[in-house]
């Protein structure tokens, strides 16, 4: 079967250390400002009854990428292996994609006047190496690989952990400990489960478009957020 790449984010293991952010910046020689991979951390409840969910989020390499749809310069490519690659050469710096992406993946680089985003370390992949963020993670909270290969590390891990696919994207997600039971196969049978990832990875206010299914999930998640309160925490 053809190669189909996906990322796996395991919030049960992530402690929010941000090494992935730094590895990504190193790898892509980014200046101050853009962070293609970011830790999103959400705290709910009040001291001492606090719940924290950490997730390291980058481009989710959507099935029907909003960034690609809105790009007037044709800078985006959806590859057969699932990766969404942005070509900085073609980019005109209009930033439509920055506005369109519900996950904050494309980011404007003041120095170059162009947008950039996660390329899953394509050059590393071509040399048989894993993306830099996956490599750096001390906690095995990130994984990447071919989900069409049942023997790949990521496939094995998805199978073992029951990681859920995030609809419309190439992302699999494992929620924090003690909530795995909420997760059953089937994308919309468990709205509570949906909210864990949307809650974390979707920066405030944006509605997913492009994938109708994900939009449903988003509205479910919005309800959950309102009910539960909580706060995105960048500092710690």
């Amino acid at each position: 079967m053809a190669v189909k790449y996906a990322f796996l984010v395991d919030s049960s293991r992530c402690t929010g250390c941000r090494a992935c952010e730094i590895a990504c910046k190193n790898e892509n020689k980014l200046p101050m400002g853009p962070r293609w991979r970011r830790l999103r951390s959400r705290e709910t409840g009040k001291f001492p009854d606090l719940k924290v969910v950490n997730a390291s989020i980058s481009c989710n390499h959507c099935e029907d990428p909003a960034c690609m749809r809105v790009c007037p310069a044709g800078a985006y490519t959806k590859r057969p292996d699932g990766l969404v690659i942005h070509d900085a050469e073609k980019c005109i710096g209009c930033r439509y994609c920055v506005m369109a992406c519900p996950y904050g993946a494309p980011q404007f680089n003041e120095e170059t006047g162009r947008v950039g985003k996660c390329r899953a370390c394509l050059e590393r992949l071509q040399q048989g190496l894993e993306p830099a963020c996956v490599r750096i993670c001390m906690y095995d909270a990130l994984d990447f690989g071919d989900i069409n290969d049942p023997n790949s590390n990521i496939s094995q891990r998805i199978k073992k952990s029951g990681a859920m696919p995030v609809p419309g994207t190439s992302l699999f997600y494992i929620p924090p400990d003690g909530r795995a039971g909420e997760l059953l196969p089937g994308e919309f049978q468990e709205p509570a489960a949906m909210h864990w990832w949307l809650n974390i990875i979707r920066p405030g206010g944006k509605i997913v478009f492009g994938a109708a299914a994900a939009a449903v999930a988003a509205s479910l998640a919005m309800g959950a957020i309102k009910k539960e309160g909580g706060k995105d925490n960048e500092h710690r």
Partner: protein
Amino acid sequence: KEQVATGTLPYGADRIVKCRCGCGDVCGVHHIADVYVKDQQIVWYGGAKEGWNKGGLCPRGASGLQIIYSPDRLKYPMKRVGERGSGKWERISWEEALDIISDKIVAAIKGPGPHTVAVCQGHNMTSTTGAVRARLAAIYGFDSFEGPHPCWNNLRFGAWATLGDYNHLKEEDFHYSKLIVIWGHNPAIAMPTEWRDGMYRAKQEFGAKIVVIDPRFTETAEKADMYIPIRPGTDAALALGLANVIINEGLYDREFVEKYTVGFEEYKELAQKYPPEEVEKITWAPADKIRELARMYATIKPAVLEVGRGVNYTADNSGWLGPRGITCLIGLTGQVGVRGAGYSVEASLTTPSNSGFIDFPFASLTKGAPTLVPRTKGVKYAAGSAARAIERLYYRKPYGYEVLLVFGTNILAKSPATNVLKEAMMQIPFIVVEDRFINTTGNIADILLPTSTWVEQAILYAEYSHLVCTPPAIKPMFESKPSFLIYAELSDKLCQKLRISQPPETYFPWRKDEDLINALLASKDLPMGGYPALNYQYVIKHPEGIRGARPYNQEGYVWFRQDGDPNKPLVFPTPSGKIELKAQQLEDKWGLPALPVHEEPFESPFSTPDVFKEYPLIGHSRVHRHWGFLQYNLISDGGYASPFIREAFPTAKEPTLELNPAKARELGLKEGDLAWVESRYGKIKARVIFSERIPPELVVTPYHWGNIQNVITPPRWSLFEGAGYNTVGPYGTPSRFIDVSGQSMYAGFLCKVYKA
């Protein structure tokens, strides 16, 4: 292993060198970096799969390249040309620098005496220099001290009083634990590999329960089964509350108590004063949780107490009484002597900076007043020496130093009472600072010496279960040198100027890092040494690490169990040979309480209610994640040298104070406001951050920031002016430094916060 099909290396590298990760001996774990080198240039830097890190790195490690290639690195020896602290320097040669330094030292030796020269070193940045520093001091009769503020002596002292020893569980030992009580420690962040392969694996794969006790809702608490908040400095009271429940509910191990403890009756009587409801009033830990934990700890076996520095930072006796009280619980329950049980102190006990020095068979070359006792073999806690150094350093009593050599420590940022220390240091006629950056201490130096990074020299690293040596990846950059070589060359100069007849190599035989490492490996005195069969060339071929030769390095070693034999009785190296619930020697030798009593921190809502009225918050410092640990790689503006770190963590960008949102609103503060933290001793300015992780009674103050003064490097970071955190701590008087453990305090003082 990273070679691709074509036979060429990624990133155009011509070789991959396995180097020890960046933190010298600081972080206490065997992390190896893959350094991809092309000619003399590093083209890629990341985690090596052979190391315990298994290819990963912490954020600080990940920013290693930014430290190595930082534009702010100290590149050449420098001489001060303006006023002290003016930031005016002139580049000089090594020859000139060593001449100036040795002249000053010789003048001091011939004048007031060699004891007025002091060598002060922190965690050695390069792993091999701790022992060398002590040797230099021994040869010439200098005062020699670490720090001068050891950060975990209370932790060791309290445990030593009860058990006669302390230990550290190896990662695989945790897999046997059914209950892991993490007390004042944040391993999920501070020790990622031990967390991943030890504690968290025990929970995820082997079904262990994790309980976290901490004033702040830590990253470890996120992953725990139970979290118990506590007021800083009241750990001893919580331990007594647990003892109360365990005794009164008949959950203690009668047979064990009978056979292996002394002082049970008196201890029992003491614990009666601490029913959970009373303890809740003292500690602010909920009574029902105290009961629950007591029952868990008494009945779930094996259980380990994993105790961190958090319990040992408060002022006066409360700092060491915490670990003292905690270890007594082992005596009650018999949770010791099998794998996965016992008391595990967070730090690895055999890092080189915690060690002695290489045998020095000669008498000192100089005659002076008796020097401070260097740490001697067999003494597992640094009795008093640091406290006495502080007397001389801070108060110039009974005499002041003429020359101070500061090697690899930013004492003006990390020491308590930095304002007092700065005043005292300004009176020292000659100060030399060796570092990679011009930090807060460097700002007031007379001579600056540039030191190399971990990839520019050979490194020896050893802790309780891993021994590694790594080769240099590139040559020392600019004119930097490894620390040990600076010591060696200084020693040569001194021999020459003191007209010593023997050749200088007699005293300081090592000119290559490799030779020094071999000497250290062979030394019987070093806890990490004693491996005469090993040598540098052999060990560098094993980046995966070698298990040490000491018994406690071995798989399956069980502390306090004779010869590791489960059929033999337990042996505790205390005066009684048992667990001392009552430790008479504390009273006899130092006039300290023999029973594990609770004493309030010297400043608290209960010990000083009047002060509390004016200063109604408890100041609590924390090390901000990986990058904030200690004083390394800080630049002259007081912050961390890596811009990526400063971007990733708002707490790294500038000094911040964290407040519970409800409390902050009550104080009229908004997130992002600048506010003052003021104690009876001083005040500092910091940016307000809201955090539900902090109880409303606490304020988490910045810990790692030195005096912020943009005097040397043109500031790339525009910071508001402010003083180092440690000026607000309660450290103004000598009595605050405990002579027994030599520990200084960083938490649990009273303060107020108001808008700036």
